[in-house]
């Protein structure tokens, strides 16, 4: 992230650097133009931005700013008064306060989540996740402190080793050997979740379990085609969803577990406080416990030997 930022910042600065004070006033040009690097003060910090467009409205210029390293959905129109030209000089001056996307993930846990300023934090979370994944590869757990801080507000999913092994096996079969599952799976995700709720009548907050399970099913149906498939499964997916059924009516435990792994990336942290995230973890742990207890029955597996096999395959 920061590498990308630096290279492009250099290119841009060479091309567009200019002193805003010597800019001659003109009716057709604002203080900044397309491609200009700017710093956007927000609270005590500065965000790095790039001007994508400018517009004059009622005699005043506004600039459409993209925040470097942030998702484009946070792009916004800002008046010149909110912007500082990003020059080596202004950087030097504000050095300690400049907030790059990669750095800000460390700050996450210090903030309480509220209001519109939390929008950017959502992107931080996603990046925190990516970063975490990479970190895990690179240096396992020797930097516990930093990880801990960033992870604090992010949902943690703990799967028993046996379920992790199942997923690894699943990955091997589907993505390496290209053996797709016979569909529909039995039980389907819908049936599995329904059975789970029926088995949980004694849970003291079954009403909340129901809310969580419904949320998982909504995510599952939306996320399956774009997030939960290995390449080898794409074509099969297009075919089975043609029948106008929902993914939760066709797919089973393997894909549900894949969703649970993705859940920390999907949740809208700007609309959740940390205690809620912790409470959510305990509810998901109840579901994972159920899956573990019923592992044998849920995973009875048949791979697709050929491409036609899922026709009429019912257990």
């Amino acid at each position: 992230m920061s590498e990308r930022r630096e290279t492009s910042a250099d290119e841009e600065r060479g091309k567009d650097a200019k002193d805003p004070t010597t800019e001659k006033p003109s009716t057709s040009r604002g203080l900044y133009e397309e491609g200009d690097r700017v710093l956007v003060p927000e609270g005590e910090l500065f965000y790095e931005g790039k001007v994508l467009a400018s517009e004059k409205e009622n005699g005043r210029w506004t600039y459409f700013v993209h925040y470097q390293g942030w998702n484009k959905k946070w792009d916004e129109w800002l008046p010149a008064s909110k912007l500082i030209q990003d020059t080596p000089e202004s950087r030097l001056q504000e050095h300690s306060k400049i907030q790059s996307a990669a750095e800000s993930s460390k700050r996450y846990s210090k903030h309480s989540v509220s209001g519109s300023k939390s929008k950017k934090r959502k992107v931080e979370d996603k990046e925190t996740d990516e970063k975490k994944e990479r970190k895990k590869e690179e240096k396992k757990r020797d930097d516990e402190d930093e990880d801990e801080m960033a992870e604090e507000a992010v949902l943690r999913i703990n799967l028993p080793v046996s379920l992790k092994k199942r997923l690894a096996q699943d990955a091997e079969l589907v993505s390496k050997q290209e053996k797709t599952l016979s569909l529909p799976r039995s039980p389907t995700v819908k049936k599995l979740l329904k059975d789970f709720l029926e088995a949980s009548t004694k849970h003291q907050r079954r009403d909340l379990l129901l809310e969580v399970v419904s949320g998982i099913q909504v995510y599952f149906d939306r996320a399956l085609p774009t997030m939960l498939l290995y390449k080898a499964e794409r074509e099969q997916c297009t075919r089975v969803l043609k029948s106008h059924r929902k993914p939760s009516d066709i797919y089973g435990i393997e894909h549900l577990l894949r969703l649970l792994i993705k859940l920390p990336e999907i949740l809208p942290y700007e609309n959740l406080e940390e205690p809620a995230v912790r409470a959510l973890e305990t509810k998901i742990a109840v579901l994972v416990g159920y899956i573990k207890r019923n592992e044998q029955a849920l995973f009875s597996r048949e791979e697709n030997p050929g491409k036609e096999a899922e026709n009429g395959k019912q257990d």
Partner: protein
Amino acid sequence: MNSQPKYHQNLAETDMIFSGSGNDDEENRELSMEIKVLEAIEIYTPSKIQGVHGHFVLFGLIDNLERRLRRKFTPDEVRDLLDRFYSLERVKPDEEDEEYFLDDEEFSLPEDFKVE
């Protein structure tokens, strides 16, 4: 004099209606609950509750209210509470939620899952 009592009686009836059971404590509780709901809505916005994350955002709102008001709320209760301020069914889902799952990306297991 004859018409006066009737007038008073009506007033008394209205009083009864406004104070509900006639219990000030309860009224205050109700009020402070509504304030807490309105405060929480800043984070748990109705447009999010109507979107793809809706169940989880409602879950968060319930958790928030239960923590701050020290009592249990069922999801239905909270939906009813929200209905006092918004007609939820007419609130449009958050726009960005509509595009949430559009980006295609192949699934891959986190490194620490790769058990030999």
